[in-house]
């Protein structure tokens, strides 16, 4: 369709909806944080209400046009990219927040409300919205729900799913569903709300949500510990879980620490060198908490699992300690890392890391592997750095081969090929390593029920049949 035809079509059938066909807008709105696909959208649309989204979906069905629901586009799996002349349905103009009910502790939000905006709103009510990650300023609630976003406090507070009390969704046929309506208890059959959460825009467009807010957390501190071995990591985690109220338990290797120190010009946190480090954030509001923290540390020190440790004395020091963990991704970026975001059961983490390390050493002896991750969630970030003397294409080719080993191992350990970044286009070819053929077939049937004409985010998540 020529731009003029598209404009005429939109002006005629959805006259209230703002849109653009300007080339720079099309490129901007066709991309997320992945950079593997060529952006190609036909138009970007900015509805303001659920009713306008309904009009768009009905028009798309009538003319057979594909739609890409679009939030903050901060995803890492190409779930929100437009690559085939789709219309991008942006939630950028759906940013209304409220009303808030203090008895229910529920706030109604439109899908385009930024995660950070909801956090701020909760703070102003003396409450707390716990889902948080680096992109909170630009990511949107609609996208958070569609990917069941996790982040840095999952260990304590769970994922976005745990805070969705109600949803308004426009299905692929243009029906408006109001799901669960903020109820706490509702045992009335299949909960379609939970089907929508994590559905990556292939079943319906989430337009509004009722989000649950909770009490703010107690004052916390950060501990950075030097550990003697990988087995010690799991024992220390079990101890920490038993004795402290944890909100984070993060792991990184000595190699990761060296990259961060070089990149950010940070001083070594410890005088000695240990193979593994863990960063814990835990409730630290009373003398009882302090005693528990010290008892935990002493136990680990006596058993030899813990070699040294630092405790933050202020929130500023807590931030400085977090830098050793949060700076890793950035510090290895210049080495063109091959990245993978995977999950196994927490107890399987050392097995997975050992087996994969062995495979890498045997088949790819020139590769340097940087491990870090949210160990408390069984979520590992595997980063393989490109050897300096290897060209990028050859490195990518070899990494594709590494995938076979990584995903094969994940399959044998019943893990997940995408812990928190979703499937989108990127992980679609590997979905079968984590989900059975029967499951995938059922997913297709569900897709068919919600979106028989396939207008919503076609090509994403479900493998090509």
């Amino acid at each position, binding site marked *: 369709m020529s731009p003029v035809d598209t404009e005429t079509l939109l002006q005629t059938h959805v006259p209230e909806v703002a849109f653009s066909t300007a080339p720079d807008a099309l490129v901007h709105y066709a991309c997320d944080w992945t950079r593997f696909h060529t952006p190609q959208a036909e138009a970007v649309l900015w509805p303001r209400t659920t009713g306008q989204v309904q009009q768009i979906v009905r028009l798309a069905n009538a003319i057979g046009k594909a739609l890409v629901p679009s939030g903050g586009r901060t995803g890492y799996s190409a779930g929100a990219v437009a690559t085939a002349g789709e219309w991008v349905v942006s939630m950028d103009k759906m940013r209304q927040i409220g009303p808030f009910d203090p008895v229910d502790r529920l706030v109604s939000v439109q899908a385009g409300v930024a995660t950070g905006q909801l956090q701020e709103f909760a703070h102003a009510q003396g409450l707390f919205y716990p889902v948080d990650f680096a992109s909170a300023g630009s990511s949107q609630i609609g996208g958070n729900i569609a990917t069941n976003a996790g982040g840095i406090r999952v260990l304590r507070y769970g994922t976005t799913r745990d805070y969705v009390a109600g949803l308004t969704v426009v299905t692929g046929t243009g029906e408006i569903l109001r799901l669960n309506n903020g109820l706490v208890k509702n045992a009335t059959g299949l909960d379609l709300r939970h089907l929508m959460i994590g559905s990556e825009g292939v079943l319906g467009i989430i337009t509004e949500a009722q989000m649950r807010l909770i009490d703010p957390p107690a004052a*916390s501190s950060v501990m950075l510990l030097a550990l003697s071995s990988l087995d010690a990591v799991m024992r220390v985690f079990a101890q920490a879980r038993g004795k402290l109220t944890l909100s984070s338990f993060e792991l990184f290797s000595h190699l990761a620490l060296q990259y961060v120190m070089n990149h950010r010009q940070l001083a070594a946190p410890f005088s000695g060198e240990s193979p593994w480090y863990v960063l814990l954030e835990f409730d630290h509001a009373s003398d009882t908490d302090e005693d528990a923290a010290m008892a935990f*540390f002493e136990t680990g020190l006596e058993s030899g699992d813990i070699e*040294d440790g*630092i*405790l*933050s*004395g*202020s*929130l*500023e020091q807590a931030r400085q300690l977090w830098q050793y963990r949060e700076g890793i991704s950035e510090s290895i970026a210049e080495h063109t890392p091959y990245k993978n975001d995977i999950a196994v059961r927490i107890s399987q983490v050392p097995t997975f890391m050992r087996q994969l390390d062995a495979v890498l050493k045997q088949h790819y002896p020139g590769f340097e592997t940087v491990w870090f991750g949210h160990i408390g969630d069984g979520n590992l970030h595997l980063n393989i750095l490109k050897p300096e003397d290897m060209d990028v294409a050859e490195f990518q080719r070899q990494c594709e081969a590494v995938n076979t080993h990584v995903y094969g191992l994940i399959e044998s350990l019943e893990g997940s090929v995408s812990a928190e970044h979703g499937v989108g286009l990127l992980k679609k070819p590997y979905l079968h390593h984590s989900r059975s053929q029967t499951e995938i077939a059922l997913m297709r049937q569900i897709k068919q029920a919600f979106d028989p004409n396939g207008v919503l985010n076609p090509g994403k998540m479900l493998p090509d049949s």
Partner: protein
Amino acid sequence: MKILVPIKRVVDYNVRVQVKPDGSGVATDGVKMSINPFDEIAIEEALRLKEQGKADEVVVVSIGPDEAQQQLRTALAMGADRAILLQSGEAVQPLQAANALLKIVQEEQPELVIMGKQAIDDDNNQTPQMLATLWDRPQATFVSKLSLENNKATATREVDAGLETIEVELPAVISTDLRLNEPRFVKLPDIMKAKRKPLETRPLSDVTGDFSEQELTITQYEAPQPRQKGVMVESVDELITLLKEKGLVA
């Protein structure tokens, strides 16, 4: 040489404080409390002087509730040798604090008192100057660089016009500015060891007597007005018209 470091327990610098609904103060329930950041710098400086062999004992003192023992323990874990808590459940004004510290100075006879230039809760910036005056000793305030030689302290001060370097004779009071140093992390094994270091507690009233006459009462706390949203104007003329309407230009 002995160094005395007065420290204060305050709401952590990074907490976004909220005024209680009845306006009687700032909400502190469940809020992170820390050593006043300027005081933390003072502790660090004292410890560095000790590590350079310029001092042989670092004593920390705080005025505050029993919970302030946590902050004193942190100072001991950082490396201070002894701690004193002057217990007070009430807010203490700078003059009373300076009088109490004077008593401790007279008992301890330090050659140097290093303290934060101000506490970040009330931002008074008065106690170091008052202590120096009551003690009748020299002071160097807002110090960003410090060295000790021959019973003299050479201090670089941050002043409006730039930097100024002065020399004061010991004993003296030094008040610290942010750029003096970066405080160390506390090692967990040192926290364990710090439990065995002496921490003496005494009621503040034993030291200063009744101070009710100087009492200053804060009647009401209010949060600052939220910033008004900005307005985009199309032209200079429109800007001038708007400014005139608001009475900001004649």
